[in-house]
């Protein structure tokens, strides 16, 4: 490979990495909010799937009705679906104090079933997948040499990296709400004694989380693909569960982790199209294996939130 084509390959890879990392970043930061408040939300995989479906279905209906802003209708609809599922998770895990793994998996199963049911109901059984015209990519500095493909990204990608990450760092570490959120996740008894409403704070954390997870899913159907298919999320939610641990529950580290894991996926796609002989599944499995290895090496010191998995009951 010549130097110029190597450079083009790397810039292309980096550009693809940003795109692939975007849904991971939304959902991972969503999970960070949930877990930092003390609730493991295994509904993530299903909520991403439901967000992808609801976003797509609403956008397709609005597009058919001739609305100009149909994609935004889809985004808002997806966010509402994520919010509702988060509230259900909060009802089960915070109010009723049920087992979080089982409740979360139940939410994932419910969302998956609902989305597939809705998909059949709205679109019927078609030989060809229905499509919409998706979000287009935009470039704030058109004509930049070399970096042009890199800057050509979706608005949602720009928002994820330039707004969501810094905003989440500020919210979690510098705002009053973030302090309360971390307090109820570390030591709910002490937080309660200090006058913080543990239940309300956890509801809010799960709600923010659910909206972000659904946004991550909607990015796939409304930006990346312009379609919805049963395999659209394909375990990305579980990757995010791994990422949260890998990122040690920190939004900034989550960004680097999403880029690293996104990079592996992007590389896998490139190598596949270039006819590389390594089975692509090996690269796809790396994020999971890396996380398990990281846990095995340093898991004892993983800074799990103090009240992780523990429901709170007022005595």
């Amino acid at each position: 490979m010549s130097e110029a084509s190597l450079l083009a390959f790397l810039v292309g890879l980096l550009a693809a990495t940003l795109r692939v990392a975007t849904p991971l970043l939304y959902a991972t930061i969503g999970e960070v909010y949930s877990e930092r408040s003390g609730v493991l939300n295994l509904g993530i995989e299903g909520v991403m799937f439901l967000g992808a479906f609801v976003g797509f279905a609403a956008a397709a209906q609005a597009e058919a009705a001739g609305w100009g802003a149909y994609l935004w209708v889809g985004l808002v609809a997806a966010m509402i679906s994520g919010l509702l599922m988060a509230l259900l998770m909060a009802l089960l895990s915070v109010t009723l104090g049920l087992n979080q793994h089982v409740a979360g998996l139940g939410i994932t199963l419910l969302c998956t079933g609902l989305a597939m049911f809705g998909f059949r109901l709205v679109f019927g059984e078609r030989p060809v997948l229905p499509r919409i015209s998706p979000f287009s990519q935009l470039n704030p500095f058109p004509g930049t040499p070399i970096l042009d493909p890199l800057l050509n990204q979706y608005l949602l990608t720009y928002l994820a990296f330039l707004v969501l990450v810094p905003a989440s760092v500020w919210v979690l570490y510098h705002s009053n709400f973030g302090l309360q959120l971390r307090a109820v996740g570390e030591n709910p008894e002490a937080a309660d004694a200090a006058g913080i409403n543990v239940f309300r704070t956890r509801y809010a954390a799960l709600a923010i989380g659910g909206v972000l997870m659904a946004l991550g899913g909607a990015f796939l159907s409304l930006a990346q693909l312009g379609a919805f298919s049963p395999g659209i999320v394909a375990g990305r939610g579980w990757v995010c569960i791994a990422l949260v641990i890998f990122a040690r529950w920190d939004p900034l580290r989550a960004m680097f982790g999403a880029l690293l894991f996104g990079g592996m996926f992007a590389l896998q796609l490139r190598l596949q199209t270039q006819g590389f002989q390594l089975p692509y599944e090996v690269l796809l499995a790396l994020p999971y294996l890396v996380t398990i290895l990281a846990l095995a090496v340093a898991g004892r010191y993983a800074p799990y939130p103090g009240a992780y998995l523990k429901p709170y009951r007022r005595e």
Partner: protein
Amino acid sequence: MTLKIERRAPPVWMRVILPILAVIITFALTSALVLMVGASPLEAYYHFLVEPLSSRVSAVEVLVKATPLLLTGAAVAVAFSGGFWNIGAEGQFLAGAVAATAIGLNMHSLPPAVAVPLTLIGGVAAGMAWVATPALMKTRLGIDEVVTTLLLNSVALLAVSALLNGPWRDPISQWPQSPDIAAAAILPKLIPRSRLHLGFLLAILVVAALGFVLSRTAFGVRLRAAGMEPDAARFAGIQVGRVMLTTALLSGGIAGLAGAIEVAGIHYHLIEAISGGHGYTGIVIATLSGLNPWAVVPAALFIGLIDTGSQTVSRALGVPVYLGEVIQATLLLVTLAVLLLQHYRIRWERRAA
């Protein structure tokens, strides 16, 4: 007003009434979806619950569908009873299916009396191997097993995909699937010309053995003690780590057996959708059964009925077949909530000033 929750011992009649209550609530909730399709909920639930049992063919199909679920349900129930939160039955199932295929493909020169047990034992061993890493990480390093078992599900699915797109790709088939295993490794049919095979009896035997071990042996007592009150169990001289490791291996082995039985009893080759979520459905069944192996049998049969019924109702009324999945998920969440009533009495009480 405030919600006040008090703990109490579960009365026996509740163990029977509560699951029935959960089913009724679930059907009431999900009837909204049936109405959306424009069908009558009562008619839909007739097709769900009664029609599959009215013909011999579909009644046998319920048993076929229940076979892997009996095992994954038992696998999850034993793990949860022992305090090992195994979310990875799906991955262990796949590992068992892979091992059974690997062995079954090489059994051409052996008699069935050797080939069948070898294939199934291979599945058990692979399921145990797949859970061993998270189990050792839990017992030796104290690392949360929920995430590790969960992530290994995705790894197992990718491994199956790599095998089917690579070395095991059947050149004749259009789809990614392995060649068929040797005839000697195939489980014999219980009823000729049906899909019901020896695996169903094996599954019942495994569940019964598990029920006996958990309720009648010293190991069962230790397992449940380690699960309920690990600190108290340790104080009583129980080696909690070792008991938990055994529990995890038992659970993984049963899930692996389910995968092997699905290959050797139904498909005769490996496909990517060989499980299609049986491991996760095991969690639904274990919850439904209240982690009691004996109750796994009715729970698995009921979910098998829902699985069969969702196809009947789809054919009869045009309700999407995915209604079955929604019902199972709703039933899981409702059961989880309703079981609270077993241990707690909830009272509304005026907030103290």
